């Protein structure tokens, strides 16, 4: 008998998870159907890849002029170009993710409220968790499609060298984490705020604080820490013979 009751109780314990999963699939399917319908999603993907390729090519041309002119061996210059292209593409994609991830989720729940469809969802057995996860998964699915589609483009850096495969993997992991994190911020405010407009404003304010804000604090902190309690700050004018300022960056007034 025990062998019969055991799977039963295991099944009962698993049932809520199975239900939640079915709910996530239900919401995700619905959202993706709307998002991927027609030509728009594919046109956006194509234009995005074309612009990314153009950007990569321009970075290559720029670096070809500057790097090759004052670096010795061709192999070293090639690696340098590879690193520069990798850096530029990854920064551009990060900026895209920072802007797009919250925009995909900031309306996810508040729009249901505004369009008065949330009640219809709330009386189904689908759980709140399933609604939230389904919304997040479907919003991020398209974003991940954009990210994954750029991998072949990114692989061009291997032609130049200077970047190891694990660098690329690490870069994409950070990108994916950023997408999930900022997408969640948007979803949070979407559930919190009554209106999509308010949710969007709150989301971008938070994203700004998390990106520009933390960068500023980091810069502030590192400068304060390195200069210590130097009396430099008390002087009315920066010294022309400051050891940190190189010859080229000397202020013009110092003639």
């Amino acid at each position, binding site marked *: 008998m025990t062998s019969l009751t055991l799977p039963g109780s295991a099944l009962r314990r698993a049932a809520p998870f199975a239900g939640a999963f079915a*709910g996530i699939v239900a919401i995700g399917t619905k959202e993706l*159907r*709307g998002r991927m319908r027609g030509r728009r999603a594919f046109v956006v993907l194509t234009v995005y890849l074309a612009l990314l390729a153009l950007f990569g090519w321009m970075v290559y041309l720029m670096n070809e002029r500057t790097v090759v002119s004052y670096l010795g061996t061709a192999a070293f210059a090639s690696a340098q170009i590879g690193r520069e292209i990798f850096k530029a593409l990854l920064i551009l994609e990060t900026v895209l993710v920072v802007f797009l991830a919250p925009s995909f989720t900031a309306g996810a729940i508040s729009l249901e409220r505004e369009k*008065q*469809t949330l009640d*219809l969802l709330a009386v189904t*057995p689908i759980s709140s968790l399933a609604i939230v996860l389904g919304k997040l998964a479907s919003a991020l699915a398209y974003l991940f499609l954009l990210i994954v589609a750029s991998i072949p483009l990114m692989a061009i850096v291997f032609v130049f060298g200077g970047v190891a495969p694990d660098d690329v993997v690490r870069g994409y992991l950070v990108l994916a984490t950023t997408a999930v994190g900022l997408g969640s911020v948007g979803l949070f405010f979407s559930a919190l705020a009554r209106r999509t407009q308010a949710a969007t404003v709150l989301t971008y304010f938070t994203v700004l604080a998390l990106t520009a804000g933390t960068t500023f604090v980091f810069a502030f902190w590192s400068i304060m820490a390195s200069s210590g309690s130097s009396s430099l700050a008390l002087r009315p004018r920066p010294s022309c013979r400051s050891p940190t300022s190189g010859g080229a960056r000397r202020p013009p007034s110092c003639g």
Partner: protein
Amino acid sequence: MSTIVRVDGLVKHYDGVAAVDGLDLQVEEGEIFGLVGPNGAGKTTTLRILATLLEPTAGEAEIAGLSVRRNPAAVRRVLGFMPDVFGVYDDMKVWEYLDFFGRCYGLSADRRRRMIGDLLELVDLADKRDAYVAELSRGMQQRLCLAHALVHDPAVLLLDEPASGLDPRARVELRELLRELRSLGKTILISSHILPELEELCSSIAIIDHGRVLAQGRVAEIEARLRLGSVLRIRTVGGLPTAEEARAWFAEQPAVAAAELLPDGTIELGFTGDDAAAADLLAAAVGAGHRIATFARAASDLEELFLQVTANGLPGGAIGGDR
């Protein structure tokens, strides 16, 4: 038949204001039950509590023996709900819309496919299967919303003002549809602030105002009681003293249960006779020398009852929510 929806002493406060104030209801299985009341009477609040969308402040509500407070998840599986104002996902096709809600209830792909065909046939949208929801007329969207509430084949349907915003033709179609659903064994709880809309359709009604049930029963029963306890309004010529005299005379007549003189000079009689008895009463009054200016029986349809009940309370205690 057994009671499938039971509401006991339901109370719901919004910021200290009672929207529902000790409401009791019993709905038998297989009925079309009408909740009637003016706007703000507490109909929507009651339905939303039954639909597990709102927590009651006090009291209990059960659907099919399941408490909406303690077991909302199970309640959701036995009821279909159509709110008074609802949106539709307009970027979806009609069949996708129903498919989505089928998935929400965890139906298998095979069952969903069959359900979509059956329901679209039922609500007469089979030819709109691949149309976008946004392209449907208001009446069609209403029927689609009703279909969405049926995807999991619930025993109880809660419809909040389903006919509002529909043109007369769409109303007739909706009424036909609800009758058909009833014949399929569904119990339907439907709210409206327009009584004639429900009078023809419903087997039982409850009249609600200020969050309380003022009268509840079978439509025929309520009408019969009303006819028994109808009100005669009489005005005499000659001011209050003569009116008081007339009131005293009327109070002694048979078939008059109660006679009351209102401050404006109108005499209200609780009258238990039929039309012939009323004619006899009038003749006798004139014969006794009373100068009658108006002699009118309050109209005996439910509309009048509704107005009376919601404006003045129960006429002479003739109608009671005593089921």
